[in-house]
């Protein structure tokens, strides 16, 4: 990874972030307390924990970097961006094919189901907050089983309708996802709170770099090289005792 410029390493440099209620709402929907059930999923991490392969802060960081750079970035992040663009031109057919693709790339059954469940819960939570009829249209599409309702797609739709900045949207999404993983690791490994805080702090540059890289990616770049995480996600459903749904 390239060395960050010194000014972008200064996390007090917030001059280019326009703080208003729109930005605060973007933060709100990515808050760990936003009730969409993200905290109940480990996306395969629990298998690593039970196999004693995730016991140190270094291992936690390595796991999160792999998940971020080789699963999220080339998977859900691309789908969020494509759904965002498709929403801007109100292309419902494109959204349906993105939703189908979102399910097809999630080979592990539990991760695929998690994506649908979190997506449906997100839809239920934000429907009363958004007056745009296009969101209702997508909701109808999911209810009539023309789409499964994957989280990445509905998130892309909602963020486009709210005119959130796309780069900021995927940055917040990646931040909240790795934060969720770290909080789950803190509770289940367990790690001390400070380990969690330091780990997330060390990942901030990776998240911002990934958000920049994402801008150049299209649906043709979809891939998943985090094969060991995927395999662990597949094995998760056979674990004897589990704290997390996936």
């Amino acid at each position, binding site marked *: 990874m390239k060395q960050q410029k010194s000014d972008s390493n200064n996390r007090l440099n917030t001059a280019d972030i326009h703080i208003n209620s729109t930005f605060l709402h973007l933060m709100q929907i990515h808050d760990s307390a936003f009730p969409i059930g993200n905290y109940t999923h480990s996306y395969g991490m629990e298998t690593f924990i039970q196999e004693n392969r995730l016991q140190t802060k270094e291992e936690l960081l390595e796991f999160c970097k792999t998940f971020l750079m080789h699963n999220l970035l080339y998977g859900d992040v691309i789908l969020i961006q494509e759904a965002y663009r498709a929403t801007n031109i109100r292309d419902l057919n494109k959204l349906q094919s993105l939703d189908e693709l979102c399910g*097809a*790339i999630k080979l592990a059954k539990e991760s695929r189901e998690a994506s649908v469940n979190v997506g449906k819960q997100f839809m239920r939570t934000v429907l009363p907050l958004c007056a745009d009829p296009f969101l209702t249209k997508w909701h109808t599409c999911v209810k009539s089983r023309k789409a499964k309702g994957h989280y990445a797609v509905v998130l892309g739709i909602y963020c486009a309708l709210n005119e959130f900045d796309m780069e900021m949207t995927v940055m917040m999404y990646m931040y909240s996802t790795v934060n969720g993983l770290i909080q789950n690791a803190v509770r289940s490994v367990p790690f001390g709170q400070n380990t969690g805080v330091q780990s997330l702090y060390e990942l901030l540059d990776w998240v911002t770099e990934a958000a920049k890289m994402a801008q150049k990616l299209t649906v043709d770049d979809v891939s998943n090289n985090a094969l*060991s995480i995927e395999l662990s996600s597949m094995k998760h459903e056979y674990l004897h005792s589990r704290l997390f749904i996936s």
Partner: protein
Amino acid sequence: MPFVFQQPPLKASRALYDGPKDRAIVYIMESSGGMVAGDRNDMTISVGHEAKVTMIQQSALKIYPSQNDKQCVQEITVDIEDNARLEWMPEVVIPFSDARFNMSTAIDMRSTSTLIWGEIIAPGREKRGEIFDFESLRSTFSIRIDDQLIAQDSISIQPAEMNLQALGMLENAQYIGSIWVVSPNAHKLDVRGIQENLLNNSTVRIAITRLESNAIHCRFLGAEQWDMQEELKRVFTMFSEQL
């Protein structure tokens, strides 16, 4: 086999019947000995209504170094009609040092038809110490059942630009194996029982999962070729016998 259109170096054998009576066996031969930079292999396979065929590649697919920066491309397109059956026996893809390879396999089938597909990607000529020395490898495998995309597995490896040994990536594994199964009877399989009987040790890790629409996927990650290949063939045969 009603029609075979072929152009060297690719060749399909005539249909042989030395297994079950209703099952044709067709060998795919590649007479050039491997793909050289800029080469392109296209295969289109149509399995007609109620036809049953096992396809076997004659040898591993070798991808030679890309001296001119051009990539080798292989595209396989498969159409399986109602109540038909295709088994594609697993063979190994070996990308040599500096090779660039882009392969895609697109399968379009009906929910009444059966597919058992296996494949293995090697890190190179491992015994010569050629491990992940290739330039790039992109593999896209997709299955559509009744026009619905139910699986898309895209792997894109550029060894010089990624830490393949990192936690969550390949770790100690060098070989990537996959089995894809689609069958109207797949729901009868006890996947938990299969998972518990899979070889899982320090050199081979395997997991099985259900996809949508009566489809199953098995992923193999192996540190050594022999153990993984033997286990992959065992699991492939088990699916073949049970479905």
